[in-house]
């Protein structure tokens, strides 16, 4: 009697697990491709967790994670070569303004965790201190506008800041020479500086509300959202579980990422993962949620600075509709 009960219980709970995981357990998992935005790093951990711990599988998906071309993955999503990609608010904004039907479907991190970093010897404590210093960037007009916004917002004189293109040179190499400050990700370069024992001053972009945009975000094309909303919901739900797992178990999540890319520096990945655990869902009711005002504000700011042409409808650029409730 007892045994039958146990068997029954196991059977029912297995069924429930399958049903809860999106059902259709007998069907073949649907193949889905997601393209990263950059070299594999801790921003992507949730995707690898969801893939390797079977969260995607439970949603009935067979997800393959691909690495992007140097010019980003938006084109691959638009052409239908990939269902999803990791992107950022700026790219989606430009894509929409240019008439491309891309949408952000989840924010990977709630706040902009990037900012301007300098070696502490430069004594750059606030944006006004950028005066007379050299900024090393990759030569995009947006960077200039960022630096200008911060300096002038702090009562400084932007014309006294020197802007020098340094290509893809990293923070440490650049600031060892003539460059004084660089735009970095707190969760990667900033953590690396800590590990290397290099003292830095860090001015986060998110201190200016207008610069606190979503980076990175997951994107899909409008067509897919209309044709196959179940697939989108399943994917986001799997990814959300992956990121929640990374929030709760940063060390284990770091191990999963390192298994996918053993070439990465272990110490850096683990430390970065611990930092991001506090950031993925910071201040949001659930992972991935985006606010309209963030999309409005940033696009408005781009326009005011003459950096965005074409018609941009913030409401069309993102949706929270597919997030698990």
């Amino acid at each position, binding site marked *: 009697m007892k045994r039958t009960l146990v068997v029954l219980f196991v059977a029912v709970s297995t069924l429930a697990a399958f049903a809860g995981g999106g059902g259709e357990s007998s069907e073949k998992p649907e193949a889905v*491709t997601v393209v990263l935005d*950059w*070299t*594999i*790093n801790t921003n992507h951990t949730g995707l690898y967790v969801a893939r390797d711990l079977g969260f995607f599988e439970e949603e009935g998906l067979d997800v393959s994670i*691909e*690495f*992007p*071309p*140097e*010019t*980003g993955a938006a*084109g*691959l999503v638009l*052409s239908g*070569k990939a269902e999803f990609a990791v992107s950022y608010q700026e790219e989606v904004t430009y894509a929409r303004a240019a008439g491309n039907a891309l949408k952000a479907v989840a924010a990977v991190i709630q706040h902009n965790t990037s900012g301007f970093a300098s070696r502490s010897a430069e004594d750059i404590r606030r944006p006004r201190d950028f005066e007379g210093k050299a900024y090393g960037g990759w030569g995009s007009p947006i960077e200039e506008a960022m630096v200008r916004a911060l300096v002038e917002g702090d009562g400084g004189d932007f014309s006294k800041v020197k802007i020098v293109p340094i290509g893809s040179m*990293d923070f*440490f*190499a650049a600031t*060892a020479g003539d460059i004084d400050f660089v735009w970095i990700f707190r969760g990667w*370069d900033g953590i*690396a500086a800590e590990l*290397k024992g290099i003292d830095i001053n860090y001015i986060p972009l998110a201190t200016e509300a207008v610069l606190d945009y979503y980076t990175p975000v997951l994107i899909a094309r409008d067509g897919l959202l209309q044709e196959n909303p179940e697939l989108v919901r399943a994917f986001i739900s799997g990814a959300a579980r992956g990121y929640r797992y990374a929030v709760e178990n940063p060390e284990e999540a770091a191990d999963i990422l390192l298994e996918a*890319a*053993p*070439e*990465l*520096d272990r110490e*850096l*990945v683990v430390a970065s993962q611990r930092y991001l655990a506090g950031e993925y869902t910071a201040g949001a009711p659930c992972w991935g949620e985006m606010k309209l005002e963030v999309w409005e504000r940033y696009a408005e700011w781009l326009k005011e600075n003459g950096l965005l042409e074409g018609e941009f409808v913030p409401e069309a650029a993102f949706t929270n509709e597919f997030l698990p409730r």
Partner: protein
Amino acid sequence: MRRSASIVTNRIRDRLPSMAAGLLFILLWEAFCRLLGLAEYILPAPSAITAALVRQFDLMLPHIGVTLFTAMSGFILSLLVAAFFSLIMDLFPVLRRALYPYIVVSQTVPIIFIYPLFLIWFGFGLTAKVVVVVLVCFFPVAVSLIDGLQNTDPDLIDLFRGMRAKPLQIFLQVRLPGALPNLFSGLRIAATYSVMGAVIGEWLGAQTGMGVYMMRSYKTFNTPRVFAAILVVVIVSLMVFAAVSLAERFFLSWKYANLRSKS
């Protein structure tokens, strides 16, 4: 026997200066890094690079295999494609005039910006990377073969014509052998390009390969590993180069025999 022994000692004597220069360069490099206490992200010392290479070699091995496979597939494919185009362009002068400029154009395409399209056309598999290799290798092979075929000694052709040789015979016995030295110069250049082309393809978007390995090492600020990977790429390229030179000695044994008898 004695003669071949003296050839070996001669060759060692020939290479001694370059080996000594290389060794001296590495020693100076090491001393430079140590004396100035340079941080690794500015310039890693040879000892640090060697250590990274030894520790990472197991991890690198599958990446090396993938890169070599991509490079060789592209190299062989570019030889076939180039041979095909060279032959039809040689057969039909109109085609040569029509197509030759575009062979040059193929070399000027900035791959970085075309590559995303390759991914869309060919997907994420091997094909897109092989196409990059073909694109960089095609030019030197095609141009050297076309030029080789065009520059056959006219007197030699007249001689064969006088002996009533058929066009096919002239092609197989005079023009093609005459073009082989040219072809091999092109192949040697293509051999070094092929590994580089594969690495570029991987750097632009791939799952595995030395380009991926380097990108990941670079993005985690591990400069010694980047240099160790560069060293591996250099060695692999030299091995491919040596293989082509070996093939040249086999196919052009007559040329080397002539050289030896002259010297």
